[in-house]
């Protein structure tokens, strides 16, 4: 047995060498069905936000005001009113209010509430109940960006206005710039 050992060892080495020479890596053949194309069509979108003091809650609280017939101003900005667009199309922006500032049967004329600026030198203008354009062809923002404009508010509380909580609602409306016109004959 000891005499056959070198022969067995040599045979083993030869087999190893031959095995390595014929060894092929195992590859899975790529099947066409394993490759998939993914696509998504991003549609035209209008997205707007109006914020007061940079946060969310639903109301603009102008606080307690004396009935002194003196116009007060709240300058638009981070701590007051701003309008933001996250749209991916240019928009026309309009503004209106729902009606007079009301406290039950006591009202303060809507004309006493005014807006201005919008970063477009919009002059001081009284709110009305019909939409008035404040920005034309606004945006769109840069890809993945946003646009922000400040809005100044003015309010005059007439003399002898009764105490109480006066409210109204203001609306900012957006429509795609030129969107209401036909595109071609």
């Amino acid at each position, binding site marked *: 047995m000891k005499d056959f050992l070198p022969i067995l060892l040599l045979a083993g080495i030869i087999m190893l060498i031959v095995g390595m020479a014929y060894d092929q890596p195992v590859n899975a053949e790529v099947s066409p069905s394993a490759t998939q194309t993914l696509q998504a069509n991003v549609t035209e979108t209008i997205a707007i936000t109006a914020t007061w003091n940079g946060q969310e809650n639903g*109301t603009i609280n102008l606080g307690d005001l004396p009935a002194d017939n003196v116009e007060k101003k709240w300058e638009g900005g981070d701590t007051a009113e701003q309008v933001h667009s996250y749209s991916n199309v240019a928009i026309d922006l309009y503004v209106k209010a729902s009606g007079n500032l009301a406290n039950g049967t006591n009202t303060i004329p809507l004309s006493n509430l005014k807006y201005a600026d919008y970063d477009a030198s919009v002059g001081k203008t009284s709110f009305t109940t019909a939409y008035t354009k404040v920005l034309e062809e606004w945006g769109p923002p840069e890809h993945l960006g946003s646009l922000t404009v400040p809005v100044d508010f003015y309010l005059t509380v007439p003399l002898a206005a009764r105490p109480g909580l006066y409210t109204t609602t203001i609306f900012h*409306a957006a429509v795609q710039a030129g*969107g*209401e016109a036909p595109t071609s004959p």
Partner: protein
Amino acid sequence: MRRVVVTLILLLFFLSSVSAVSLLVSPTRFEIKNTSHFSGKVTVTNFGNETIEVTIDKKRILKDKIHLLLVDGGPADWIKVKETRFTLKPKEYKDVHFEVNVPSNYNYRDAVGALVIRATPKATPQYKGGGAQFVIMQGAEVIVPIVIGLSGPIKESLKLENFKAPIIIITPLPGEFRYTIKNTGNTYQNFTGTITLNGWFNTAKVNSTGGVYPGDNYTDVITWRPGLWDLGVYGADAKIEYGRYNPQKPIEATSQVIVIPGWLIVLIILLIVLRFIRGKKIPIKIKIERE
């Protein structure tokens, strides 16, 4: 401890004075051609951090240079909306389905209706007691036009309803020229309005563009700011060109404007004051006393 409580109360008071309504709508418009029936949907998303109440209304759009009116009737009656009122929590979205059915007796080729998507906050203000408090709620609206174009004979026609020019312009203040046109045809019309001002020494031109649907009026406002040396009587010639399918005969109107430079008025006033001061004689009184 008391200071901490007071600080917390103050913080809560000021934090309550905050507001936002975030509304996202897609797609932003629909255009329907040569069909009397259409079904579509818009996706409404609350991309903010507050719950909102959403209402969907159908309207007809009336628009001019400055104003947007959303009225009932006409194309608004052709639209049916399935989901008209719902609540969206933050980051929620909902598909709103609608149908458009144009009546067979409609005689215009072009019309525009709209979906008016309104979002308002759920929170309501509470009276804290004391004097007069003022709270303004905020809402957001997105208007999605539904533009309808039908087949049929083409009639292009605009009519000038009125043209108003200022009588006097005192510089540097601008003057506004207004005209109202009515679409008496049956197709949507784009137009260009040009005001040509012919003066003693120079000529100026200002123009504006717009669009008006059949049956609607459009009021355009063109502003002219005269130059520093503009002076005298100017002829204001308005010319409105239109014709979406074929160029039409322009509409024309004429008026006159007097331009007075503001600096001239100031100069005249100064001259008058100067003359008055120079021309006024001051009597000298001499009293002789005898000793």
